């Protein structure tokens, strides 16, 4: 122990008094809620080394022992399929937690207990948390927890973590945990037992999981485990591999299925007389709402209502209108900017340096004003809306509603989540595309986010800009929709690879807890600000530099023909240069031009369309590079630039031809 080399610092800590507890279980069983209830304010969320999967870690003091709490990504079985599951298992394999809390949903004991069986089989230190008891009780399920505990031979605790029920018992169980001396003996059918034994006999290395569990994973052709075993067995491995191949070949058709069925039988046997089902199924209002939201006839109108009130009224009118007026119009323009300008002028003798802070492109008067005055209210309202919707369980339902339509664009319904998030922040949404199954789907989603989905801040500004001319707004909306559909449609045809498949669990619909929604919004805002504020400041500095060195003017001159091609005045180049730093920043630049009366309706429309399509901001580009690699990112950037300009050009011609002004 303690010799493990891949987690240096972690290991140092656990050499001291810090012990570790890991939370595992299916998605949506309340792991994060439990995690938040157990840990205090100091939580770190970071990517698991070498992956894009996020893992939260926190600390807690139980008695006088410090515990590190790890919230693992959702997993369905010890044999892993997705990257998330792989990370969850890796935490169990490499970090050797002192206690593992397997959290499951009381209503789905039979299905989820199969994993408890696997954890016990691997001889891991498991405590079973039967969660969401409140809802189970409401529908009339009765669960005999003491009997379950006796049968499993490990501690079993009933909880409703979202109702703060059972937290005390869980803490106590963690601190009192000792490895059970009589855990459930998992026995399969005779043939399977024989096969396991044959493989197990050939294993000689030292492992953190019981050999029996590893033998099963080998037989399931688990690549990662095969790698670990290959290393541990050394020269012995070929013999073992031969045996595994032999057995797998014999049972090739049905090994996974046989194993799952045997495990289900074991779970059923354990649960005999433990669960009493209600005589009649209670149909709750949540279920009624759920049915309502997934039937096209009612679901589509509901979607429109959600978009109208959530996006348009709350984010658009309230966030981008009322709040921006207060923050930017009143707070900055009327009070803060004159005040800070006064100070700067009084204390900084050089005009050039004054300009750096409070000039046309000043860090404070432009950078901070845009970031705090315009972007903050819009993005905050959007994230509140998004987090609220997320916690109701609406997104999976939306996903199934749009799956058929999305398939035409080469994506499964699952992609609706990053797409909606894109209307908040394309950068964050590009990161979320990693939850999609295939590379093909991810690339198409990334492309559409880069090209056609305007982020909330940008949307707010553009709608504000064009709202004075409803015709312009209409043309902009129609063009964007048309181009998005066109590109998606073509991408689905051109991109190689198999069409995606769609499957999704529909968690029950719930009334979100305000605390949870605010916490999520806060975390997202924090991320957003850490990411954008520096960019705004850098942008301001670069723009200032460009201005004082006159490089900027040259660049504008260079871009003049390009602007002219799409019928825009050369000043509009400024907005496009801004645009590279943040898309919304670019739109805000247009806003300035319009207030100076430099553009007419046609020009404004063309500029808005081109700019919305135009290059994603620096941040989004960097994330694209991280997620998809240089080649894809550059390819998309190039395509987007050419496409934006060609579209601007054609639109301008069309509008000129019909005489739109």
């Amino acid at each position, binding site marked *: 122990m303690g010799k493990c080399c891949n987690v240096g610092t972690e290991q140092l800590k656990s050499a001291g008094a810090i012990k570790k507890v890991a939370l595992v279980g299916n998605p949506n069983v309340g792991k994060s809620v439990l995690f938040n209830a157990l840990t205090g304010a100091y939580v770190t969320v970071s990517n698991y080394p070498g992956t894009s999967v996020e893992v939260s870690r926190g600390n807690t003091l139980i008695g006088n022992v410090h515990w590190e709490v790890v919230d693992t990504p959702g997993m*369905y*079985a010890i*044999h892993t*399929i997705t990257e998330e599951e792989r990370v969850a298992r890796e935490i169990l394999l490499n970090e050797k937690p002192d206690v593992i809390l397997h959290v499951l*949903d009381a*209503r*789905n004991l*039979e*299905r989820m207990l199969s994993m408890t069986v696997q954890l016990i089989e691997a001889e891991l230190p498991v405590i079973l948390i039967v969660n969401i008891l409140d809802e189970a009780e409401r*529908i009339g399920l009765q669960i005999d927890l003491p009997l379950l505990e006796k049968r499993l031979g490990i501690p079993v605790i009933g909880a409703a973590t979202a109702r703060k029920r059972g937290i005390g018992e869980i803490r106590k169980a963690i601190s009192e945990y000792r490895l059970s001396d009589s855990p459930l003996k998992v026995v399969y059918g005779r043939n399977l037992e024989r096969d396991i034994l044959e493989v197990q006999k050939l294993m000689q290395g030292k492992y953190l999981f019981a050999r029996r569990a590893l033998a099963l994973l080998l037989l399931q052709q688990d690549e990662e485990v095969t790698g670990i075993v290959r290393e541990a067995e050394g020269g012995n491995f070929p013999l073992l591999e031969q045996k595994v191949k032999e057995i797998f070949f014999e049972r090739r058709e049905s090994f*996974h*299925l046989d194993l*799952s*069925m045997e495990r*289900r039988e074991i779970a059923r046997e354990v649960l005999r007389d433990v669960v009493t089902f209600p005589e009649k199924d209670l149909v709750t209002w949540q279920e009624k709402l*759920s*049915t309502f939201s*997934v*039937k*096209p006839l009612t679901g589509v109108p509901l979607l429109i209502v959600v978009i109208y009130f959530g996006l348009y009224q709350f984010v658009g009118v309230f966030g981008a209108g009322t709040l921006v007026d207060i923050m930017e119009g009143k707070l900055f323009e009327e009070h803060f900017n004159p005040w800070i300008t006064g100070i700067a002028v009084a204390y900084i003798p050089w005009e050039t340096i004054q300009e750096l802070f409070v000039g046309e492109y000043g860090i404070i008067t432009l950078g901070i004003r845009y970031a705090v005055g315009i972007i903050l209210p819009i993005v905050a309202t959007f994230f509140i809306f998004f987090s609220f919707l997320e916690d109701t369980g609406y997104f*999976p*339902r939306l*996903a*199934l*509603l*749009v*799956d*058929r339509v999305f*398939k035409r664009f080469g994506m*499964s*319904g699952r992609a609706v989540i990053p797409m909606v998030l894109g209307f908040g922040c394309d950068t964050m949404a590009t990161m979320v595309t990693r939850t999609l199954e295939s590379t093909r789907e991810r690339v198409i989603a990334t492309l559409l986010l880069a090209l056609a989905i305007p982020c909330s801040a940008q949307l707010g500004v553009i709608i504000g800009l064009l709202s004075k001319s409803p015709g312009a707004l209409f043309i902009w909306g129609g063009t964007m929709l048309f181009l998005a559909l066109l590109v998606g449609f073509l991408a689905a045809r051109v991109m190689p690879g198999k069409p995606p*498949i*769609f*499957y*999704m*669990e*529909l968690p029950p619909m719930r009334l979100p807890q305000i605390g949870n929604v605010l916490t999520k919004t806060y975390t997202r805002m924090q991320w957003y600000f850490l990411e954008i504020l520096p960019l705004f400041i850098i942008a301001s500095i670069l723009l200032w530099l460009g201005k004082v060195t006159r490089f900027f003017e040259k660049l504008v001159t260079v871009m003049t023909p390009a602007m002219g091609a799409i019928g825009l005045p050369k000043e509009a180049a400024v907005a496009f240069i801004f645009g590279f730093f943040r898309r919304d920043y670019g739109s805000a630049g247009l806003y300035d031009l319009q207030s100076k009366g430099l553009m007419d309706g046609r020009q404004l429309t063309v500029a808005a369309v081109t700019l919305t399509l135009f290059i994603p901001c620096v941040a989004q580009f960097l994330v694209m590079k991280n997620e998809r690699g240089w080649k894809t990112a550059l390819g998309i950037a190039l395509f987007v630039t050419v496409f934006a300009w060609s579209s601007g050009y054609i639109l301008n011609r069309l509008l000129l031809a019909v005489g739109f002004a």
Partner: protein
Amino acid sequence: MKLSEHAEEILEAIWVATEEKGDFCLEIEKTGVSPDDPAYAELTANALVEIREGMICFRPEGKKEGEMTIRRHRLAERLMMDVLNIRGEDGDSKACKFEHLLNEGVDTKICTMLNHPKTCPHGKPIPPGECCEDARSKGDLGIVTLTEFKSGQAGEIAYIQSEDSKKMQKLMAMGVLPGNRITLMQSFPSYIFRVGYSEFAIDSELAREIFIRKEG
């Protein structure tokens, strides 16, 4: 009675000619089996056919045997196509080999698994067996895919059939395991089903791979 492969092929040829084309007998050259093949002797010895002046005709038992042989052949074709997903010439030639294995109860099992199909992949009728009559009288429609269910219908999962082991494991993780009860909640725009107290949505690709034994 266990006949040789050639004998079965001759029976099939006569059956098609007499039952489907309306001929009375078939010329020996047209059976597709050379006239000096021992299969002819085998058939006459079993009192299934009569051979007169280069023509071969059914005797009553022979007609029955021919019908069952045709049935096995067409069931084999369906099996190749629907379950094993082997099509075209390859499928035909495999079906030809396979049909000879489908006797004594195996055909009944396959017929039930395929939900008592009425036609072969080329649209020709499959003569019904006893199992088909039984099923019809009991109103038992056998096993169908989730895509053939109506909303609200429930049944027991009979088997999952997928070429892709990952897809299969995904389904199993959702609790789609033979023997579990499944209820279809909705079939458009996506399939929503319920197993236990959980609900899942899948597309028709996946829904087609879940086979369910219908309940009443």
